């Protein structure tokens, strides 16, 4: 705020709002030629005024635009708001650049600013137009259950000659929501942050699931059950947050391990409930005889939905989860094998890793579908037990495990040799050293990369459609051809599936960043001035 050679007169003191405004402008358009004078503030207000006037003008003109009757008023409002806002934003930046002549002092920033604003405006306008005006999302609303659960479950729900099987998945959902709340309760996330994001997520899910338009299921029942799940999650969060506040860290760690085990149990339970194997059916038959709670188990005595009839998002999640969980185990074994000095461990591991890595995943999916059954059929008493989905889970674990093995191997090599020597001095056997010293160290340093491999596996489940497994993407992209009421809506399901996959992957990447921060692995470097 000292006197500046440009004007020779010291400017009046500025309020916080003005300081913030000037900072933002410098960030977007570069340094002003009038910096440090009163004229600066005047110009800023002028630019703001121009921008607001433009916004109002544009908003009114867009809102009264000629559109087909299909477009609802909310869509029209959102579209006009969005387009006008970004257009006036562009005008504001242009005005600022011209009035303050920032291109004289910092030409590159000014140019970048204008260019980006133009690009942003066009992209936003295009997207809003596509999303709100031209796309007809009815096909998505009409097929919510089909894309989620597949053809057989939808048939069971809508037709009378098959009993509905949707009850199988609600216990899994309750448990998953509960574990979700518990995991966040034990972590270091602030309560405010968690509540905000959880609220937003719940509202989105409720809005999606409870829209009565085109619903071919009982919306009220779904509402009740979803509210149950939400309250379980909140309850779990509150309980475990309270527990972690009053307990020591080692006790919290024990509970964390328990939660992890419960998550694995959740995954296994999902598979077993959907298609109870014979021994589970017999156990349920015994448990049915217990007087009070026995009736809970009676549905489990029937055979369920065989894996060949699973479909939808459920299949994607199950295959990805199997790939991640089993892949981690396979990866750890292969990593240790590869870096061992015993040839009997090293050479087989190296050959497995190199052979599996040489081909793209599609290759291996095809192999698992048609060639693997030839090899392993004698191991099954009933060869038909080796279902499509099981084959996919096996090959995803192998493929994921190989890449995770490479990552962990890097981590193992980075373990300080002093640690290993100390362990040896303490008398730990080699296996104990590996289990208690090397592996935790390696996983700690490589956990973000491992999570990014998980994200890759999740995205790769979209390839299941090539071998005719009815996963979410295949159902979504074939809907325009099989849904007689919505033929020809080719693009909407594709955009919808892109968004769904993106949301899951984005959430996982946020988790990975959170993990990185928690483990203290983010470093600061230089180079911004480049």
């Amino acid at each position: 705020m000292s006197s500046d050679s440009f004007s020779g007169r010291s400017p009046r003191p500025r309020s916080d709002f003005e300081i913030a405004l000037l900072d933002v402008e410098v960030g977007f358009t570069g340094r002003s030629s009038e910096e440090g004078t009163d004229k600066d503030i005047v110009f800023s207000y002028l630019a703001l005024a121009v921008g607001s006037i433009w916004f109002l003008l544009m908003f009114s003109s867009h809102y009264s635009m000629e559109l087909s009757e299909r477009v609802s008023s909310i869509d029209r409002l959102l579209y006009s708001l969005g387009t006008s806002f970004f257009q006036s934003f562009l005008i504001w930046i242009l005005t600022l650049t011209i009035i303050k002549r920032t291109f004289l002092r910092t030409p590159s920033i000014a140019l970048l600013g204008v260019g980006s604003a133009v690009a942003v405006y066009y992209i936003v306008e295009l997207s809003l137009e596509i999303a709100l005006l031209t796309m007809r999302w009815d096909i998505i609303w009409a097929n919510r259950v089909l894309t989620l659960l597949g053809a057989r479950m939808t048939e069971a729900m809508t037709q009378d000659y098959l009993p509905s099987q949707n009850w199988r998945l609600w216990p899994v959902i309750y448990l998953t929501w509960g574990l979700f709340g518990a995991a966040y309760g034990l972590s270091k996330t602030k309560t405010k942050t968690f509540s905000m994001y959880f609220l937003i997520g719940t509202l989105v899910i409720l809005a999606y699931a409870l829209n009565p338009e085109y619903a071919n299921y009982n919306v009220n029942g779904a509402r009740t059950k979803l509210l149950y799940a939400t309250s379980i999650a909140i309850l779990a969060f509150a309980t475990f947050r309270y527990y972690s506040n009053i307990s020591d860290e080692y006790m919290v760690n024990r509970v964390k391990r328990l939660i992890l085990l419960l998550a694995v149990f959740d995954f296994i339970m999902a598979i077993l409930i959907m298609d109870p194997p014979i021994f589970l059916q017999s156990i349920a038959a015994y448990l049915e005889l217990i007087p009070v709670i026995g009736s809970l188990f009676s549905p489990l005595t029937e055979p369920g939905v065989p894996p060949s009839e699973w479909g939808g998002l459920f299949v994607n999640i199950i295959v990805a989860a199997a790939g991640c969980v089993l892949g981690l185990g396979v990866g750890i074994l292969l990593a240790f094998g590869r870096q061992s000095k015993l040839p009997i461990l090293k050479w087989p591991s190296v050959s497995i890793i190199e052979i599996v890595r040489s081909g793209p995943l599609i290759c291996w999916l095809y192999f698992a579908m048609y060639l693997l059954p030839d090899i392993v059929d004698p191991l099954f008493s009933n060869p038909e037990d080796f279902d499509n989905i099981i084959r996919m889970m096996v090959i995803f674990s192998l493929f994921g495990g190989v890449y995770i093995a490479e990552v962990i191997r890097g981590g193992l090599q980075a373990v300080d040799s002093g640690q290993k020597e100390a362990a040896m001095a303490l008398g730990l056997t080699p296996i104990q050293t590996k289990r208690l010293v090397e592996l935790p160290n390696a996983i700690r340093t490589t956990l973000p990369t491992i999570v990014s491999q998980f994200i890759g596996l999740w995205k790769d489940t979209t390839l299941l459609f090539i071998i005719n497994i009815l996963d979410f993407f295949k159902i979504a992209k074939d809907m325009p051809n099989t849904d007689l009421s919505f033929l020809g809506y080719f693009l909407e399901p594709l955009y919808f599936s892109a968004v769904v996959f993106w949301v899951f992957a984005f959430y996982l990447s946020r988790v990975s960043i959170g993990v990185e921060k928690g483990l203290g692995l983010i470093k600061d470097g230089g180079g911004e001035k480049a």
Partner: protein
Amino acid sequence: MSSTIIYGISIWLLWSYCSKTLTPTIGSITDLSRSFVVNGVELNPSYIGENQVAWWASAAILMLFLLALNEFGNIINPRNLNGYATSLFGVLSVLVVQLMISILDFTPTEGLPFLIIGMPVLASYLLLLGDLPEILSIRASRGQYLRSGIPTGFFILLSLFLTSTPMVIRQNMVQLFSASIVILTIFAWVMIKSESGDPREQDRRFSALVFMISVPGVLFVTIRFLLLLNNPDTVTRERWNLDWSFMNDLNSFIINVWPVDAVFGEDTRWRFYIAAIVNSARATLLSIVLCTILGIFIGVMRLSSNKLASSMATVYVEVFRNLPLAVLLFLIATQLGETLPLFREEANLNGWLYYSNKGIWTPTTETWRLGLFLILLISVWIAFRIMGRDGVDDSNRAVLQRSGIWGATTVLGIALMIEGATTPEVVKPIPESPASWSVVESTAFEITPMFTAMVMGLTLFTASVVAEVVRGSIQSLPRGQVEAAVSLALTPYQRLRLVILPQALRSMIPLLNSQYMNVWKNSSLAIIVAYSDVFYVIFVMMNNVGKLIPLFILLLVTYQAGSLLISGFMNAYNARVTRVRI
């Protein structure tokens, strides 16, 4: 208590694994070695003879045995026979067994399986004891001779006189062998956990344990492969037969390839395969070039001080990194099909570039002009390298001069090309039927919509990862370097060229290497946009011919070769960049 449960479960798992793998193995060995000749015709389609079966099984087990012995280091001193005596012993015993099988008569149902499965079990027992080196150098004690020799002798006797043993043993071979493997594993585990002996002993025991556990699995897989190659069921045999003669037949479907021609009804499958590889390669190369340029641009933009630009770059990276490539390709292909104008609208840029959802037609010149342009560029580049061999002049004046010469060359070359260029010409044989309108082939260069979608999808997807790599390497530079460059009054261009880029490239190149290999492997998704790449062609061939394994091997070899090429090239470049130690 929990450790007891874990022990119990592991023993049960081991037992079921052994019995599950050994039972079909015995059945398969019987199938493969039983001859059933009626009137001089061999009626057993899987018959390959006892010798073959024993040979393949022993070869697999021998390889495993040699790996477990870990005596490879000792072969360096060939004089010291004791160093690798056990390996020689292993090889010798395999040969002896082969001899035995050809001379003596081992029944296919009992004798041969007993021998084939019993030998590895005995070998693992001997490995575990570790007496063999000493026995072979005749330095062992009596106890060692006894405990190694007696079971060996017992086994040999049993296998020779198997028919005189009680039925119990012969009918329950699986249980017998599984039990012995389980017991041996338990003892090995006990010995390893006893923490006694020097690390070499522990290593040996651990190798022996791994050998023991892998024996049933390896035997199962080897014998299974043998059975699959000689399967009574013709369809399975077709699938597994390692024979590439069908590739010399005419291909049965049409593909769209350039520049190598593959005509339906005239060319063999090999030609279609080569043409498809060229297709894959050109899509990959173009994507690599484009995604590097776009990735560097976005990575640098992410680091700019303009908040708007950097947030836009962040949004781009976040969006495209988390989208699955399959969905993105499908989306781009469909959206392009809907958005690009119909061909009948004859949308064009001033008559030079025709674009529609059937393809994009660019002007084309004679090939020699293109070649001339390339030669011009290369000669200018060589000239500059020669002039700068003692040191490149980085002053502003020299940089301007050089840019001027490059610009002039480019303009000259383009003018040369434009002179001989032909614009796309649309002919309309049936004016009322827009479907018959087309662009005359010699006047334009066609870019198919499939190629466009493929390259766009790969570029957009990979550019986001490359941007992250670039940003990461530039950000990981020590702050002091850039500040020192600024304080030395270097211009931004000089800063980039002399300080930032050399250091950033070091960390970038290995990461870019893996990204380029990913581009090559991701090009296999071309089946989604119906672009005829190598995977698509082999996929359709697999369904037409049913010879899965030969085609699968071709596929793996192709992708591995491509990865090795890319990797080799990048490693060479890396060596050049890291030649100067920083």
